[in-house]
């Protein structure tokens, strides 16, 4: 692996973790779409800050982006408060408006500099290693590695410091307010974090794919754990897997790195969605199937127990008549019988079914449970 490749991989992984951390709270607060809104609207903030500073490397660009992210949240809240529109419509109104102003300003007034719409939308992580941070002639690595690193640390510090407060404000805003933890202020703090994260990830993955990295890993982690701190850790892990896997995919397919990373994030989520130990599709399917068969053999055992206790006629217990008694179809009946025999609940003597001691016990237990 060349140094460039390593640097790209490191940057991709750091971006993924930086995005996944605040993303956890977006997913839990059911405002995942807010990441989409913010990551677009901040373009206007960046452009305006650029007009002010005339310098693409200025840290004021990040400040401009953060301010515009908060403006997006505030405008959305303002529209919701009129009670004329719901949240999704409000988000859908605000961010295209701000984003389109940004796009117009961008191609009307900044034609000759390197800040074009393509770069904003898709980023270009492959070029990141060429823009290096050099101080006193010493090469300290790609500049974006340092910006992303700084924002990763910022996210870590914020979430560690306010872990308890964020947890309470997300789970129960009412109690958070009653205890004086200012959930509204925390919400704006979190949204500023999302804005800053989005602007830092701009350069590498662009404003569309940043959404994938903010939402897919936390959504996967949500299916894998019951604890918030684990959800944060697993999100970060899934983010790194998406970054590394996406990079490999891009290498093999000779495709866009950012695009491959987002695709791989989707694949990782899909994998978790299907194979998660308790909440995955497969696990649920197996449990449901097991419950269904278990219930069917219970029903059969209880039927045999009842006919035993009532000393009913033997026809009640004859294999070939069983489907009529249970009102099951023939195929299903013979499957249930075969399964119950295999489980040692019933035995077949000639044409007649009877309960084994184990089956009798289980049937009695089922009845007593109602």
């Amino acid at each position, binding site marked *: 692996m060349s140094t460039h490749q390593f640097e790209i991989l490191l940057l991709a992984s750091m971006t993924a973790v930086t995005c996944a951390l605040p993303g956890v709270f977006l997913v*839990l607060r059911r405002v995942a779409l807010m990441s989409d809104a913010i990551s677009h609207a901040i373009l206007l903030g960046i452009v305006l800050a650029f007009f002010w500073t005339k310098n693409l490397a200025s840290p004021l660009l990040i400040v401009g982006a953060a301010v515009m992210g908060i403006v997006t949240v505030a405008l959305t809240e303002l529209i919701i408060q009129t009670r004329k529109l719901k949240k999704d419509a409000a988000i859908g109104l605000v961010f295209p408006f701000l984003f389109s102003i940004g796009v117009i300003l961008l191609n009307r007034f900044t034609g000759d500099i390197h800040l074009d719409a393509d770069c904003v939308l898709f980023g270009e992580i492959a070029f990141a290693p060429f823009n290096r941070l050099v101080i006193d002639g010493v090469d300290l690595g790609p500049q974006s590695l340092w910006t992303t690193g700084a924002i990763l640390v910022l996210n870590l510090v914020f979430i560690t*410091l306010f*872990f308890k*407060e964020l947890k309470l404000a*997300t*789970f129960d805003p009412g*109690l958070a307010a009653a*205890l004086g933890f200012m959930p509204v202020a925390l919400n704006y703090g979190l949204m500023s974090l999302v804005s800053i994260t989005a602007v830092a990830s701009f350069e590498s993955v662009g404003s569309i794919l940043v959404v994938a990295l903010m939402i897919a890993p936390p959504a996967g982690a949500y299916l894998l754990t*019951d*604890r918030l701190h684990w959800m944060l850790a697993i999100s970060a892990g899934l983010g790194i897997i998406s970054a590394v896997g996406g990079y490999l995919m891009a290498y093999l397919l000779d495709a866009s790195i950012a695009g491959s990373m987002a695709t791989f994030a989707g694949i990782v989520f899909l994998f978790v969605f299907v194979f998660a130990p308790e909440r995955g599709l497969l696990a649920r399917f197996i449990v449901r199937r097991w419950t269904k068969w278990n219930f069917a053999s219970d029903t059969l055992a209880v039927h045999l127990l009842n006919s035993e206790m009532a000393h009913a006629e033997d026809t009640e217990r004859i294999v070939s008549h069983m489907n009529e008694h249970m009102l099951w179809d023939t195929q299903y009946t013979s499957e249930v019988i075969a399964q119950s025999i295999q489980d040692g609940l019933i035995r077949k003597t000639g044409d007649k079914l009877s309960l084994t001691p184990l089956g009798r016990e289980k049937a009695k237990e089922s009845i007593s449970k109602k």
Partner: protein
Amino acid sequence: MGAAKGKKETIKPAIEITDLTVAYHEKPVLWDVDFEAPQDCMLAIVGPNGAGKSTLIKSIMGLVKPAAGRVLVFGKTYRPESRLIGYVPQRGTVDWDFPTNVLDVVLMGRYGHLGWFKRPTDKDRRLALECLDKVGMTDFINRQISQLSGGQQQRVFLARAFIQDAPIYLMDEPFAGVDATTERSIITLLRELQDRGKTIICVHHDLQTLKEYFDHVLLLNVRALALGKVSDVLTQENLKRTYGGRTAFLAGMTEDEEPRG
């Protein structure tokens, strides 16, 4: 009698509300409400949907800004830092699929004592276990909260209220959606709190149990229509004023009814 009265005047009411009006977009939700809850009482706030019951509770805690009037808690404007009020929101207002367990939810009640930045200690955890023991949920401490029944969720909320250890408790429909057994044990626990000198104020919906569970009641429908001892206030006349014409279902709950036939 005179001495008792003299003594009573020196004890401040737990909550004192004067001329409180709360409005959303100039539409009054609470309209010139006067309300006083004596200390150690068990008071129900009763009224139809949209009567402003939850808003009243939120105004007491200062979470809703009044358009007019004032709220005093033990004679002072309420500040969350004073931790005088323990709050139990409606069960439906939180996300029960949130990745957390029973012990953790109870510990959240302790956050007010901890303040910003500090994490719960072993002492807080011990307290939480004691409170879970009181509500009979010791076997569930590590259970993910979505796997609890409605009654169990309400018990967890109650344990979280106990750990707040406040002189006043405001509870928003603590009996909503719980079975009869749980309702019994909740009321027993609330009585214990009252015996320890706590003031308990609940939004309540079931007029059938009102007389049995509570000693004071506020009948509310945007305006405060009646306030006082349950036995004095719960009359057909007052219920009619609170619930409007739809009072056929109220028959048999009050003491002042004319015998039928």
